[in-house]
């Protein structure tokens, strides 16, 4: 460890000497996005900040898959390496990675009070604000407004309705020769995205959040069973079998090429679905995800990304300044207008320009504020394993290799085994 610190320090000194720039200018590296628009938006903002402050920003591209990205971060931070100063972290990671980040409260000037309190609470570990919210996310339902209108259907309010409408529209469209049409696409691959989707189904039926706030395993209940039973009927019926290997982009690919009636996805798909070359431009609508039966609730899994500063950074103050810039009101507004990234600042949901670009932000405000959180705080470093068990069992239900009953009881027993000595 000492050796490394020494090595790191000397490398830093060397780098600083080579840079030979004014004392105030520093180089900060940030990981944000992988490719495409996400990276582009981040680059523009980082360049603007660099212009303003005279510092230099290096953008480190990281793997696009969140599981891969987390593994990378864990290794990097465990090694105490200063390669990345500012980390873009998922909403479920503060509990896992928190000990490696600095407290941002001294740099925020109290601005965190303007952000959604639930996210700030999520990002506070042991009394320290380890990350600033950058954008939030919640699962929403995309639908083909043109197709619903064509067949006189309305936007579904419950998952059962969604299933029926999807089936009807899909069959009618196929009858008209559109053989590639499917009713519903979502994230069915065995990865974190499936955990998000499945949590929404279960929560919509009032089936809880797998592990409750006290750390008890609650997933094996009637409501969760009802949710999984319905979900288990989708694949091959209204969803293509390939959905079992779909992440966000694969689902969007099918929906955006006009081959699906409904899609569960994050808000980012809105701007892309309405981009110039999109075949479904102007034909799509967004609604809250359906309820689980008439006494269920509309819900969406809390997603979104935060920015955190590494403890091992050579310039923590400068890095923190970048974080505060990127999470500021103006920057979040720019991202919302250009990329449909949901702000974490409540006031922005009343901003005219933001609402013009994303009409659904206003209607779905409640969904975003009340999004259901995955049990990452209570399960801490074991969250990955919990989620892995959950998505594997759900995947088995979707692919029909396990009955929902067996999957839930197996899940319960493996989670109980995992937590035998507390989380």
């Amino acid at each position: 460890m000492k050796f490394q610190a020494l090595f790191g320090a000397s490398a830093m000194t060397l780098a600083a000497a080579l840079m030979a720039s004014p004392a105030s200018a520093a180089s900060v590296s940030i990981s944000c996005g992988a490719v495409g628009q996400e990276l582009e938006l981040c680059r523009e903002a980082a360049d603007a900040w660099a212009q303003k402050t005279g510092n230099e920003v290096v953008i480190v591209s990281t793997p696009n898959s969140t599981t891969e990205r987390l593994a990378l971060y864990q290794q990097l931070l465990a090694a105490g390496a200063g390669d990345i100063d500012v980390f873009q972290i998922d909403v479920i990671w503060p509990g896992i990675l928190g000990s490696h980040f600095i407290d941002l409260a001294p740099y925020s000037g109290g601005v965190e009070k303007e952000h959604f309190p639930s996210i700030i609470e999520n990002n506070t570990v042991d009394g320290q604000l380890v990350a600033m919210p950058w954008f939030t996310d919640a699962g929403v339902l995309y639908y083909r407004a043109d197709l619903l209108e064509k067949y006189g259907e309305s936007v579904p309010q419950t998952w059962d309705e969604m299933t029926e409408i999807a089936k009807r529209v899909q069959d009618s469209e196929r009858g008209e020769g559109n053989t590639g049409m499917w009713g519903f696409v979502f994230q069915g691959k065995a990865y974190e995205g499936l955990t998000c989707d499945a949590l929404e189904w279960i929560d919509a039926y009032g089936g809880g959040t797998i592990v409750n706030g006290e750390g008890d395993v609650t997933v094996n209940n009637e409501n969760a069973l009802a949710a999984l039973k319905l979900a288990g009927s989708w694949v091959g019926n209204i969803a293509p079998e390939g959905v079992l290997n779909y992440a966000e982009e694969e689902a969007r690919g099918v929906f955006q090429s006009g081959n699906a009636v409904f899609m569960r996805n994050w808000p980012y798909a809105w701007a892309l679905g309405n981009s110039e070359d999109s075949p479904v431009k102007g034909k799509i609508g967004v609604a809250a995800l359906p309820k689980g039966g008439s006494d269920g609730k509309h819900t969406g899994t809390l997603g979104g990304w935060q920015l955190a500063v590494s403890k091992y950074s050579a310039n923590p103050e400068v890095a923190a300044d970048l974080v505060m810039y990127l999470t500021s009101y103006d920057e979040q507004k720019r991202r919302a207008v250009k990329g449909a990234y949901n702000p974490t600042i409540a006031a922005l949901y009343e901003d005219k320009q933001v609402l013009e670009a994303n009409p659904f932000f206003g209607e779905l405000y409640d969904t975003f504020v009340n999004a259901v959180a995955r049990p990452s705080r209570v399960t801490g470093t074991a969250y990955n394993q919990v989620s892995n068990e959950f998505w594997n069992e759900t995947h088995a239900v979707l692919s029909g290799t396990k009955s929902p009953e067996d999957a839930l009881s197996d899940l319960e027993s493996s989670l109980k085994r995992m937590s035998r000595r507390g989380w």
Partner: protein
Amino acid sequence: MSVQRLVGKVAFWALLIAIAIFAVFPFYYAILSSFRSGSELFTASILPDHFDFRNYVSVFTEQPFGRNILNSVVVAFTVVAISLFLGLTAAYALGRVQFTGRGLLLLTILSVSMFPQVAVLSGMFELIRTLGIYNSLPGLILANLILTLPFTVWVLTTFMRELPKELEEAAYVDGASPWTVVSKIFMPLMWPAMVTTGLLAFIAAWNEFLFALTFTLSAQQRTVPVAIALLSGASQFELPWGNIMAASVIVTVPVVILVLIFQRRIVSGLTAGAVKG
């Protein structure tokens, strides 16, 4: 009889064509796909129709792919050089000198080549961290040696054994040192074997994935296989299959050419490594 022979002949040629298609088609299709972009990618067709170099350009502009290739080249060449040097001296000792413990040593080396990579992963991770060469090319070079060194020693030893015994005796009688014997007498004779072994080691290091995935962090330090594996993701307008295929073609073509040029040597190296084991 002649009808039967004709049928036999047709069946034989059908088999040949089937084998050829089975072997070549996937690579052919990758090349084809690499020239398609946008929605052209999603119309599956097995005939070449588009020649669009956009993917090849964007592979290099959207990530440091040139740097990744350079990393792979540096790692593979260094690993081959180290393995060949250590392998040649060791092969001389193992192949030409009779001493106690030789069998055991050969057995150990063979066992190391059977190590599952994952079995040394955590220990190697720690070693690399301790040496302070995490997320750097020296770290990868060190890790790759476990794949190439045992194999190199093994194959070179097999070749070394085949050389006639009289070779070095005259030199020893003349009072030459063992090092002179190795460098002046065996080295020239071993060139063909070294080319073969070096090529196989090069391919092994070039293709290595797990270590490169685990021991590097930043895009700048990645080798080509990891870069390709992590290339997937959300590009704005299309699934990046075009880019992936372009990258795949770029890294595969040199290896395929090498293999085709040296195919006879490679076959002899493979058989020396396995059959004579």
